[in-house]
């Protein structure tokens, strides 16, 4: 356990709660398996000692900010999580003065399932180059220098290189397992629509039938609705009970957004999102 990080977070949390600067701290506590972590909502100072930070704190806590938008909260944010805060600010879903961000210089999160940890870093962390959060109100841990970039889209490129038939059967096999539990949607800070298109009945885009065609429809549009917004925290893939490789969908769009619009999501709270703006003279290969 990163002792230093946990101590600093607890002290800042106690200070914020006792001074009533915030109504609650959204952080992490030990889960019921005694190994992994789970989100904690600390309302009173004596809850503060449950707060922890270590390499199992995988959840993107900014997911809870829209639910708590009517109160003032502090959240513990890893670099990717804080980019999701920027996304919510850029999309006017939360007010900056009602969110106190305790940024954490991230040691990287390990792969874990309930009751089991292994020491391999999660795929997103192996690719991660920004260990210091781009935005925070208080920083925990020593900022580290940027590491040399690594090819972040090798798995996407691999799938792109395959033939159409191979890709068709690959995705058909993945989507066939989907049980439409929507854990991927509910785990995502970017999915805050009051009524999701997949549950709309009038018009009924998808409907309630769970079948290959409907599952394909769901996954295409879910991923596309996050194009230029997703910050690749991979919580959707981690929440999926049947291991559908959702990050392969999200990061394909992330790669294309980078190439087409030279844009990365969540780096600033004032950013204009790529599909909500344009450049008159840009050439994008459509209809040319």
């Amino acid at each position: 356990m990163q002792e230093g990080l946990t101590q600093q977070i607890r002290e800042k949390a106690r200070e914020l709660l006792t001074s009533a600067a915030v109504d609650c701290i959204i952080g992490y506590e030990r889960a019921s398996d005694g190994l992994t972590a789970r989100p904690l909502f600390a309302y009173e100072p004596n809850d503060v000692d449950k707060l922890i930070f270590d390499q199992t704190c995988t959840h993107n806590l900014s997911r809870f900010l829209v639910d708590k938008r009517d109160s003032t909260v502090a959240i513990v944010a890893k670099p990717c999580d804080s980019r999701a805060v920027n996304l919510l600010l850029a999309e006017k879903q939360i007010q900056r003065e009602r969110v106190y961000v305790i940024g954490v210089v991230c040691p990287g999160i390990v792969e874990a399932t309930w009751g089991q940890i292994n020491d391999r870093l999660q795929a997103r962390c192996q690719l991660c180059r920004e260990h210091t959060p781009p935005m925070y109100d208080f920083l925990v841990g020593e900022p580290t220098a940027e590491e040399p970039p690594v090819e972040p889209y090798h798995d996407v490129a691999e799938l792109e290189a395959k033939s159409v038939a191979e890709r068709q059967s690959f995705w058909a096999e993945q989507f066939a397992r989907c049980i439409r539990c929507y854990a991927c949607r509910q785990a995502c800070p970017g999915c805050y629509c009051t009524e999701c298109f997949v549950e709309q009945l009038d018009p009924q885009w998808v409907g309630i039938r769970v079948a290959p065609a409907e599952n394909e429809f769901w996954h295409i549009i879910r991923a596309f609705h996050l194009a230029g917004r997703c910050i690749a925290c991979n919580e959707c893939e981690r929440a999926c009970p049947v291991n559908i490789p959702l990050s392969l969908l999200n990061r394909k769009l992330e790669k294309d957004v980078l190439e087409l619009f030279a844009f990365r999501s969540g780096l600033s709270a004032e950013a204009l999102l790529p599909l909500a703006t344009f450049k008159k003279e840009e050439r994008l290969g459509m209809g040319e």
Partner: protein
Amino acid sequence: MIEGYQPKIIGFLCNWCGYAGADLAGTSRITYPANIRVIRVPCSGRVDPLLVIKSFQQGADGVLVAGCHPGECHYVEGNYYTRRRFALLHPFLEYLGIEKQRFRVEWVSASEGKKFSQLVSSFTEELAKLGPRREA
């Protein structure tokens, strides 16, 4: 080429250019294949990816979005958003196994009846070569 296979195309034509171009083709006796089912939209910017995917899911073999040339949009910037949106959706569909030839975005002005007719003919031919998207 499968014997007797007629590809189904869903065409979202923007009212001011695409649709007007198709109209012009009609009034000037320029024929184009009947494979296209035309859906008129106020602007190509109105075409939501939901409409494109729903068309494919309901059995379309090809989807066409025809709007005004960039800079000539009746609503000034509608087709700029269309251009970005589908520049992103197009490779994404390819990535998911919907061949890129099945989804086309074209700029057809109200005076380009000929271009519209050639566009629909070439699209139909290409889809006929490709075969149905889903085994019937």
